[in-house]
């Protein structure tokens, strides 16, 4: 069953690529859409020149630092606010307001503040990760099961044990989900910062090729981003699954 599904997927992908390859130029001008062979050539060219890897490195560097800083900050702040009922209630409307800003809208001013090099990318990716990780951590801490807490207290847990051995594991699915969603979002943030102003990176390459009407180059950049995100998601699926193997699978309805 599973291998048949894989087979169908490959067939579908091939059919789409063939249609694109041979339809391009007949239905829509190749100038607008490019085609797989041209995109492959463009990718190969930038790989040979070393551009592809250096662009990739520059974008990933900004996304990575931002992700690490933002996640650590979000986790810490989420845990802190999750413990303090009063502070959480005071801050709630402000946090919701900040959360409500379309984050992309902040990119221009971040570039103004932090320049066109690494820092603005780190800050964009950092802010994105911070908000996502903070929210999920906070939700996770809040969602702690009171009955389980009481059971643990009766079994002898002190405050610290209650936190480390009940609240934290109980919140872990939320925290892991936040950390997970934040990874592709950090990447997107870094690329957006590069769109605004930059001198290198995947976002820069996509912008620069579009400005010179090099649609094959643009498509090549998009393909790289797509492969990157799909790859990351696949790895993260595995990691999440092995960390949360105590959770019933979504398809397993026999026990609730």
């Amino acid at each position, binding site marked *: 069953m599973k291998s048949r599904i894989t087979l169908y997927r490959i067939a579908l992908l091939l059919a789409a690529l063939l249609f694109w390859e041979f339809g391009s130029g007949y239905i829509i001008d190749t100038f607008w859409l490019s085609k797989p062979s041209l995109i492959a050539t463009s990718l190969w060219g930038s790989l040979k020149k070393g551009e592809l890897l250096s662009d990739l490195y520059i974008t990933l560097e900004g996304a990575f630092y931002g992700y690490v800083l933002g996640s650590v900050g979000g986790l810490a702040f989420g845990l802190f606010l999750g413990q303090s009922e009063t502070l959480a209630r005071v801050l709630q409307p402000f946090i919701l307001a900040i959360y409500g800003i379309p984050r992309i809208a902040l990119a221009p001013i971040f570039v103004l503040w932090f320049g066109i090099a690494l820092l603005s990318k780190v800050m964009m990716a950092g802010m994105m990760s911070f908000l996502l990780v903070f929210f999920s951590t906070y939700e996770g801490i809040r969602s702690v099961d009171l*009955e*389980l807490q*009481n*059971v*643990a*207290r*009766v*079994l*002898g*847990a*002190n405050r610290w*044990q209650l936190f480390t*051995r*009940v609240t934290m*594991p*109980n919140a*872990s699915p939320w925290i892991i989900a936040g950390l997970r969603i934040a990874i592709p979002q950090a990447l997107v943030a870094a690329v957006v910062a590069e769109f605004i102003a930059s001198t290198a990176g995947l976002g820069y390459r996509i912008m620069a090729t579009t400005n010179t009407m090099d649609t094959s180059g643009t498509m090549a950049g998009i393909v790289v981003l797509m492969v990157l995100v799909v790859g990351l998601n696949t790895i993260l699926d595995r990691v999440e699954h092995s960390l949360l*193997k*105590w*959770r*019933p699978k979504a398809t*397993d309805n026999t*026990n609730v």
Partner: protein
Amino acid sequence: MAKAPIIQLSSVSRVFRGQREVTALAALDLDIAEGEFVTVVGPSGCGKSTLLNLIVGLQSPTTGQKLYRGQPFSGLNLDIGYVTQSDNLFPWLTVIENVCFGLSLRGIGSRAEQRDRALELIERVGLKGFENHYRHELSGGMRQRVNIVRTLVYDPPVILLDEPFGPLDAQTRLQLQDLLLTLWHERPKTTLIFITHDLTEAIALGDRVIIMSARPGRVEEIVPVDLPRPRDIYTIHTDEQFRRIYDRVWLRLAEQMKAPVS
């Protein structure tokens, strides 16, 4: 009473203040002797669970006094174990980790000793081979076995059980009742307070059946169960004496069920 009571409640009441005041327990008196197996029955909503929460110290009485071994106490009493109605296993821990949890929190024994103690009990309740399973991989009956063993493993002098077999099917219930009696006979000093809505279960297990009144809950009557031990849980309901006690408890309870709920 021959032995000194391990738990004494005198005119204990508990009032919940919400949108309107609800008196869950009113002027309740109860003495429980060490090593006794007491079962509690009563109409639903009569404050049975509140009673257990007060005894263990998860809630405090609004008025009245609680004594443990003759001493007044407030706050959580760690000498008292509590087997809740829903199994409340920690879903992120395996069976053996759940069973070791109390020992580990209390720092009783080395890791290896904790494991040995847990494994022994897990085997006794027929869960050998399931040590490394998570909660979602167990049936309801298995979960409740783990829930009971998780408390038994650190040998608290008093164990409260709140309808532990409530959601289980009849066969599994009988098996677990039998198991509970066996494990209790091996720990003659352990005091059990067991809430149930099943009269057969209450009489088959208990030394005394405490009948609570409709809300606000008081002790309506205490019926001694003078059936010899060890009891055969599978046939005891055919016993002549058992039937007499059953009828007596049932009539008293029926009166309470008919009483208008205040």
